[in-house]
């Protein structure tokens, strides 16, 4: 009957080559986890900062989980997208991070990456946008074979999460 409450926000992103970013996010948890309330996934607005580099979304995350086991501790996976001046969106980065397992406030940076693709793809990406995307976006967080991907590092997504744990101590989980 342990409960995990994640309250926080996806603050924004920095370090991406272009502005005008938005983010699709989702939480993935194992089968022992049960969503009590809140949205498990979402998408932010597009932020195109006029000054400075960082895009701010301040997108709220408020999820309440109940769990019967520790396996499959929730992970937050992100996809950062870029909307170009023609209103087209292209992928800018995948990333994921574990939800912190200790209670309290956590400020986190989630690094992101993007598949590189072949040189032809890179070339066309340079001129016409778009880019290689994962066929199966599960790979963002499951990543067994991810090392084989040829990727480029992209920017960081900044997260601020407050973790509230309840009753974990009852089952011998210390934190």
């Amino acid at each position, binding site marked *: *009957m342990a409960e995990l409450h994640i309250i926080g926000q996806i603050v924004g992103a920095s370090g991406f080559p272009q502005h005008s970013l938005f983010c699709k996010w989702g939480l993935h948890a*194992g089968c022992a986890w049960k*969503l*009590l309330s809140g949205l498990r996934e979402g998408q932010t607005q597009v932020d195109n900062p006029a000054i400075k580099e960082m895009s701010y979304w301040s997108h709220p995350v408020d999820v309440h989980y109940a769990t019967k086991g520790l*396996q499959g501790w929730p992970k937050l996976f992100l996809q950062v997208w870029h909307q170009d001046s023609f209103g087209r969106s292209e992928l800018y980065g995948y990333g994921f991070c574990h939800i912190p397992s200790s209670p309290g406030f956590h400020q986190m940076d989630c690094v992101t990456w993007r598949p590189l693709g072949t040189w032809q793809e890179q070339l066309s990406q340079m001129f016409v946008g778009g880019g290689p995307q*994962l066929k199966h976006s599960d790979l963002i967080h499951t990543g067994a074979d991810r090392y084989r991907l040829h990727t480029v590092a992209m920017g960081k997504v900044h997260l601020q999460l407050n973790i509230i744990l309840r009753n974990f101590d009852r*089952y011998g989980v210390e934190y």
Partner: protein
Amino acid sequence: MASTENLRQKIKSKRKALQASLTGSSEVSDTQGLVSAEMENGTRNENATFIEDIQDEDEQAENLKQTMRAQRRRRKAPLVDDVIEFNHEESPQDITKITRRQRSLPPLGECTPSTSFAEYSMREKMREKLKAARSKAQSALQQEEESASRYPTDLGDQSSITQFDTEVDEEYAKRPRDAESPIPPPRVRFREIASRLKPKPKEGFPSTEEAYNFFTFNFDPEPEDSNEGSEVRSHPQTLHDVDQGEEEAAEEGGEESAVSKDEEKEEEGKEEDERLVNDDEEDEDDYLFIIDQTARDFLIVKAPDYEGYNNRQQRDRKVLFIPSILSVSTSEKVPENMQPRFLEDEGIYVGEKPKVSKSNQNIIENRLLKNEEGKRWFGSDGRVIALANPIKQTKTRPPIFSPHDEVDPAIETLYRKAERSRYNSQYIAGSGEPQGHFQLDIDVAGIVFSHHPMFSREHVLEAKLAQLYDQYQLRQQKNLANLYTDKLCALRKAVNNIAEGQGVQNPMALHRLVEYKSEIRATRRMCHLEQERDRTLLKNIIKVWKDIKSLREFQKFTNTPVKLHLRRQEANRKADELSYEHEIQAEIAELLEDYQEVYDSKLEEYKIKYEEWKSWRKARKAKKKQKRVAGEQQDDDTDESLTAEELPKPDPPEPVDPSVVEEQVRETAARIYRKPGEPLLYPELSMTATVTPTNQCPRGEQLRRQDVQRCTLFAKVLFNNKEVSRTSSRTLGIDFRIHFGQIFNMQIVNWPESIKIQIFQTIGTSTTKIEVFVPIPETSILTGSAPIDEMEFSSDQRVMFDHEGVGSGVAFSFEVDGSNQLILLTSGKLACSVSWAVDENGVPLVPPVLHQNYGIQSTLKHLDAISSIGATGLTDTKKLAKWAAESRLDPNDPSNAALMQLIMSATNGEEPNKDYFRLDHLQEEFNFLSEEALNKSKRFRLLQLRNDGVTEFLNYKQIPIKDSEISEKIFQEYKNKQCDRETFDLTSHLDVHRAKVAKYLQKVRDSVTSRFLLAKHHYTLPDMVIEEAVPSISMLGVNLFRLAEPRRPLRPRRKERKKVTAQNLSDGDIKLLVNIIRAYDIPIRKSMGRPALTSRSARSVSETFPTSQPPQISAESPEWCTDQVSVHPFVEVSFQRIVRQTATLVGPNPNWNEELELPFRAPNGDYSTSSLQSVTDEVFINVFDEVVYDVLEDDRERGSGVHTRTEKHWLGFVHIPFTTIYSQSRIDGTFRINIPPVLLGYSKERNLASERGWEAVRSLSDGSYLSLFITVEPHLVPGEPVIEKFESQEDEKLLQRADKFQKEVAQKFRNRRCVTTVTDLTGKMVFVTRYIKPLFPPQELLDVLPNSSEATMELLARYVSLIPFLPDSVTFAGICDLWCTSDQFLNLLAGDEEEHAVLLCNYFLALGKKAWLVIGTAIPEGPTAYVLSYDHNQYVIWNSTTGQYYGQFDAFCSLQSVSCLVSAENVWFNVQKYETVMRINFDTSKSNLWKPFFSRSFPFPGLSSVQPDELVYQHTDKAAAVELQDKIEKILKEKIMEWRPRHPTRWNRYCTSTLRQFLPKLELSHGREGGDDHCAELQSLLGDYRISGFPIHMSFSELKPVIEAVHSTGVHNTETPLAEFALAVYIHPYPNNVLSVWIYVASLVRNR
């Protein structure tokens, strides 16, 4: 020599002096010492021999010296003077020097000056010290050494001499070389020695001998390295012995001095050379001292120290060990006496050793061997022990880029173009992710006309022939007749087999026999059928061919190349006859057998029956006998029973006559079978006939051919009604075939909704169009595999020609006399195929889920059990196999082959493996708790339910943190609801039917909401961002202008307020503002005791239409004007049980102008749009009369005190649903006050009518009115109606037209609502005219007033209005308007304005009236639907929800504007300038006033109605109504008592019963009349009671509104202590469970 003697002496003395005190560095003196000692040694033996040599050497040395000097001089050029002086002064000394140089090395001396002055002084001090030390030590040493050293010298002398001889010689030989090559300076040498000294003490063999050696041999001028090493070895030992603890330097000095002393003492005589040398040295020293002033001379330029490579190498060799690279023999490596052992050969695993190069290996081996215990590094195999090579042979990390580009599917990436997200739900990608492109390939192959207007007669026949021939070929291919014949044969054989083989009657075989026989029968029937068909077909073909031939002959030319050959195959007549006869015989035999069987069974039956009959007859006879015996008494009974049981005598069945059967068989055979001997005919169609050239044809035919050549065709491809492409145009061939052969590849974005191919045919200038609809292919149909389909098409266009062409849609005949006419329409076949394209990778470009196209339908399918379950049933192979087994499919039938195969594979296939694997294994083991425990948690459940938006838990605040704090009760209701879906909650509905309806509504609502869930998630920008509009220049201008405007504070205006989105609101934020402005014509009090006059005569409909007649002026007695008790009205507004009231004014036309503020609370504190829309609360605006009673007991007190009691008497009410206010955001207008038909003690008189002109007009519409302004503060943004494109079954063209029409009119009249298509209950778009259809009302209603159509209309309006009103916005919160058909409406017994209006309109139409549906706006409903009827030259507007009606020129008509009229055939849009009812013309025939939807350009296509043919009305159960009536009465009484907690509530039974009697009368009169009569009656009955009360009338839907209505009247609020109450309820049942509820509430106060 004398000189030398002198010199020596001199030197001696000098030396003595010097030695004690000074000269040079210690090293120098050291070397001097050494050199001198050496010289001593040398000279001692060689004195004689040397002397001659010296001379030569002297010269050499002299030369050398000279050159050196010269060099020095040159270098010291600036010091020339000094040097010269020196030279002069020291010239004699030079000689001495020369002599000295004989032995010592020239550079020796020279090196001394290199010491610096500082060093020099230091050394001096040192020397002084040394001297002191030495002098001390000398005394001791001298004695020792003198005794000790004497003896060994003799011994050592012998050997040393020989030794030295050679050595010296060597020395000499070397000398010149050495002189040239830089000799290591003595200092260095000393160091070497010194360094060598150090380790020496360790070796312990100090001996005096060696010490001696040291002292003797040490003085080698240039010792050999090796010698030196060996010599010096002993040296320190001696030192040790001699003087331990002394410093080395001191020792040296000490030694030297000791040695020199020795020499002095012992070998004075021999020491000439030595002395000389010493002298020399001293001279040098002197010399140095002399040149002390010239410091430069100390500096010596030296060549850089260089050690020769070889030297170094040699030296290194001593220090370093360089292992050899030669391989070491194994024997050295293994322990002795052992053979190397190779473990690998013995079969023991030895890992492969890391690879080391051979030389390296050798080196290390060599090195290791040199080590102590070096062998332990080697293994038994003689190799260096090493771990096995740790590097794995296989690569643990596979290469990222393998040459074969096999990418793991898991990490596959896909290049996606940057795309605009233009897809929304109606486009393909439902998931929102653009999946890429989808492509449809449309192959338009060609067209074949089966009839064309330009066909000549011959063509017609040819087409027919071709068609028949095609059919023939198809049949030939199938060859069904043969198949059946074969089957028949096989079956017969099987039967024979069974019959012959089975002598024993096996029940199984018997059973099979029966089966076979029945099968034979069936097969034979089929066989005959097929054969007959074949034959007729053949006959037809031949007939048509004959026709063609005769036609060709007749017209004398040939038009078509068609030619039919009949191939004959002569048959063997005899064999034919035989088989023919055999066939017939077999058939006859079978038939006979069959008949026999039937006969047998019948006979059997007959026998049984006969037996029965016989026994019955016997019994009868026996009874008759009995009867006679028993007498007459029982006779009647038995007789009756016997007659009843009398059985007819069964007839025996007729036996079968074989001849008849044979005749039958032969007859059919003659018809079907080929006659024996008749040749077999095989028709063959060919195109070989020659067509007559055009010039040989008659004129008509020539024209036709010309026309044909002029005719061109092309095809357009339309996708979703948009032209995509078109084929090139082709000329029509003479054979009326066109080949396009074009393939169109369409990349699509939108869902394919329709694919249409339009064929355009141009003949000259005229163009005709034929449309062919092509089905959208299944997802499995891909390009390449798609067959070309032939789509038949036809056109009903009439085409007529004046030439030979037969035309289309025109009658023509082949006969000469014109009989047997034919009408052929243009028709043909379009060969085309539509398929989904396949990309180069073989991936079909098919949208992922094509059926999403029917999204709405598919969601509805979930409700439809058959479509969902049925479909899955078909895919269940097991079921299929079962079915196949049951239906006994013929496995040999080729048409069943595919099916059989499927079944075979299905049954043979293994059972699906039930084994499963578990994801997240070990999960169970690590679980904290079980799944059940988790699910049991009440807190979690509550949280989840709240999150899911379950209505009960939505907005549930603060869920307790502990399970124990949550009571199980919370879920009870929810659970009940879940399981109570089927059972009815009678307590709240009181009526089974209504409970059912409520359930049904709930279900519909559920399904509809789930459908709209997606749409609800669409947020618009204003939902998210609240942005203040930036004032534009024009706005600013207006504002500026406004500043200049004259201020008119007395004429306030309403300003537009800022809109507030619902989401950021909370309790208490929202207020309802009700501005009560004024009221007109409020009923006034009547004075008591005076009988009321019947002021209102019964009105008929005709009276209410005032245009035709002069205003009615009520004939009132003038005395009313004076003798009037006024009224003190005030208005009370109650909303959500909160009550506010205005001030009390006087008179029937009060002007309050007061604003009342009521707080609003949303249910559950949820202020979301959908929640607000579903608020069912109503605003009750009640008008009361305040009556003040004087309760003063004593008249005497009147002067001093006021003692009154006020009572409020309800006069009427207006109620406005909150949803209306919410959706309209404000309500402004004058409303009719609902005044009960009977108001005891009040009357409404139009007494002033005659006096005020305007009043007269108004008063025509009877009633009281109230002007109101209601709004919500802050301004809430009403939920946007969901604009959703629904699926529709309407014609695409019609929908487009509707769209266009709506857009057109919306441009001109923005605020007029145009309704063309509406959504029905299943969520489909339906054209609105389909709802209008004459429907008969219940006969009972028509029977009430058979002769007055007006009254009937009124009654119908009343009936319709009694059907409860339930606004759509409440039913389907946040969802658009849904229209029910009338039968649905009557079933639901709930609906909003549209349903009411449609039903009423349909009734009127059924009565034969002209009626339209009016779409417009009204107060308070807002956008609504009314009914317009036209009768007696006047238009009447009916409010279907209230049953009220208004004339067109009624000022108080609640319909404010009219925008649309709808009839069964058309929709008219109001294009007049005005839209108010009074100012518009309802003549729809004028198209400048009413824009019709269906006009001449777009005629009415004859849309069928969605309404049922007939409405079926249920008869209402009267008993149930009575029961309900009692129930309601009871509940209401309880409620009233509940509302009066502080007072006892007394019920006046007498009054109640009186009222109860009165209510039915009211119902009969529709509440119109009898009020006053009743009043009088009551008054007389209850003489001394003051009664205030009234009947309330309403339609019945639920209990809650009834209670609410009673509460809102406030009758229970009477504070009079002795008040009594009366309450009566009457329910009048109308057909179909429509109930009219009357509630009479009254309070009585006894008059004193």
